[in-house]
């Protein structure tokens, strides 16, 4: 998996590419938690080019969301393929995680 990280106007965007599974989730977790401990409060995760996610990926996003909440931060998820979104729905994560259609929509939320 490739992760492209962009900081802009107080928001850190992580563009995910490829597969977020048990082989790749640890490096993503590190990148996310490093950014948060460096002071990032506003996070966007861009799923546009993510082809695959497993529960190992959900776990990382849940952890980051909990950590951000404790620091009064905010997370937005955007541009998911329909079958990736389905995974969030089955997990019930869509009830507390804001999932929007596009990166633009995600930026507007901050």
């Amino acid at each position: 998996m490739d992760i492209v990280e962009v900081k802009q106007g107080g928001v850190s965007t992580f563009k995910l590419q490829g597969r977020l599974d048990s082989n790749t989730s640890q490096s993503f977790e590190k990148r996310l938690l490093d950014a948060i401990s460096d002071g990032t409060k506003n996070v966007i995760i861009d799923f546009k080019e993510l082809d695959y996610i497993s529960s190992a990926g959900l776990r990382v996003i849940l952890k980051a969301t909990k950590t951000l909440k404790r620091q009064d931060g905010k997370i937005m998820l955007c541009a998911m393929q329909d079958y990736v979104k389905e995974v969030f729905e089955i997990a019930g994560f869509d009830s507390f995680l804001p999932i929007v259609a596009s990166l633009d929509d995600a930026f507007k939320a901050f």
Partner: protein
Amino acid sequence: MSTTGSVSFELRNNLSELATLCEKMEGVGQTLSLSRRCLFEMNLALDELFTNIISYGFRDQSEHFIRVHISADHDVLTVVLEDDGIAFNPIDRIPPEVPCTLDECKVGGLGIHLVKNLMDEVSYERRAGTNVLTLKKSIEKS
């Protein structure tokens, strides 16, 4: 005119074998003209079960083989997973409460829940020291 077929192979109990599983499933998907969504859902279910077997199934440090058998017939895809790990019936697991709030939501415990929701049918049998898990899913053609 539907394509029928079956394939059997073994994976070692090593996370690197996820790539092999994914590669073979892509081949199956292409041969059967599975939709991207259907292939994704199959891959995800197998990934979760395979990862669990590796993570929780074995108490020793030796090499084990997980047998995968996939067959397609009459628009139903059937996958049988066999492992010689400790007896474990995933169907018995109590599902996590869904939907929940962020504070209630516990980290973990989602794998089996995903499998049950993505597959149309899941059945389990312990047969001569082997966990035999059978998954069924109707095929949506792309």
